[in-house]
């Protein structure tokens, strides 16, 4: 980097380089481990993508999982886990919230963060309902779960979400505050699955602001880039 202008200038340049090097090595190393699916890891992957932060995106194949699990490194015998500078964090939303807080994508005040959390948990209720439908072990239970989703869980929750969205700048921005947060990204990850599972029922049609929000999030350059680049998986 030396310009040979003067020894002082050279010293200043190499000092500021050293500071940059220090801050680069102070940046944590992140390793996210999950199945080769979007699933419960996708909120975190979207957060890394939007923040522009590097991480190791480890994908465990189904056949490898029993051995992995037996290694004892998974606090609850489940994935995803995030390893950051030697610490292990489990539980997908805890991981996502950690990353969101680190990258300024969690909301700016405690109140905004609470609104983000509220939206995330509400979306979680719908995910849970869809999960009950997907994983039901007999046709009767499946039909019952689907009925509950379509008549109760989705209308109630999405009505609430549409209203909350509309209280924020008329609903033409993001869920909370003036910029993208974890709430929007988790909404995106959820609706990828939701829209696919309930294609015929077209449940999003009743919620124009939420539909537009989904498109708006997908159009964000960092999101678009990740969605195009990521491995294509069914769920």
């Amino acid at each position, binding site marked *: 980097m030396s310009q040979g202008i003067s020894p002082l200038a050279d010293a200043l340049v190499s000092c500021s380089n050293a500071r940059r090097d220090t801050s680069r090595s102070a940046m944590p190393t992140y390793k996210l481990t999950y199945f080769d699916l979007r699933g419960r890891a996708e909120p975190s992957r979207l957060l890394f993508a939007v923040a522009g932060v590097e991480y190791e995106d480890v994908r465990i194949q189904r056949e490898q999982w029993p051995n992995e699990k037996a290694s004892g490194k998974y606090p609850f015998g489940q994935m995803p886990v995030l390893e950051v500078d030697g610490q292990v964090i489990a*539980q997908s939303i805890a991981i996502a*919230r950690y990353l969101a807080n680190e990258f300024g994508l969690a909301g700016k005040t405690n109140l905004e963060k609470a609104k983000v959390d509220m939206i995330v948990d509400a979306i979680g209720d719908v995910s849970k309902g869809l999960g009950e439908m997907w994983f039901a072990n007999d046709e009767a239970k499946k039909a019952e779960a689907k009925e509950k989703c379509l008549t109760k869980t989705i209308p109630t929750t999405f009505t609430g979400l549409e209203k909350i969205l509309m209280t924020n700048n008329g609903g033409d921005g993001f869920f909370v505050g003036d910029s993208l947060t974890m709430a929007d990204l988790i909404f995106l990850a959820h609706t990828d699955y939701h829209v696919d599972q309930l294609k015929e029922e077209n449940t999003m049609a009743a919620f124009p602001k939420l539909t537009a929000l989904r498109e708006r999030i997908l159009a964000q350059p960092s999101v678009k880039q990740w969605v195009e680049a990521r491995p294509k998986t069914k769920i």
Partner: protein
Amino acid sequence: MPKYKLTYLVFRGRGEVIRLLFAAAGVEFEDVRVTLKDWPAMKETDPERKRFLFNQLPILEFDGHVLAQSHAIARYVANEFGFAGNTNLEKAKVDMIVSAVEDAYSPLVTNVWYEKDKARKEAWFTEFRETLLPKSLTALEKLLTANGGGDGFFVGDSVTFADIMFADRVDLLVFHSSPDVLDGYPKLKALKSRVEALPKIAEWIKKRPYAPDFEFH
């Protein structure tokens, strides 16, 4: 200090952890309790869903704001009053444990309250007692022990949302398995006593209304 108004059902359920956090913080709040019988009519007073955002309880109202979703509310109170963990990493560990306790106890709600088929219920309970519960408690005991030997709290040096969530919800886990189930998890057992002995929490436990319907079948 804003005036906080918590609205929930009469029993402990998903509201109690919030009440305990206010108590631990020494912060006054209006503790509104609704019976299951009165809840439908109460919902109808809010057709625009300005209060009951997701048609559910609990909600927390203060300074013209409304929050829904029990964990979001609890975490807000915890963050406001210093019970959430001190760094982002500590907060993540707190959240992780809260989620794990939720995972351990919430299937009880589905399978005690909502499951009508007796055979399915029995089968699930066997799995709960023999597999699911031991697995959860083993994992929690290990995490607690990893924090300086396990004779303090789950995260850091002081009581957090994680400890309070565990101490409150574990009663339901014990009730649906056996009274001495915690004997196999000595650090967790001691943690529960430690949390309940904290002066402001002990005071709340002593004075709170006794309302075990729904919770304990």
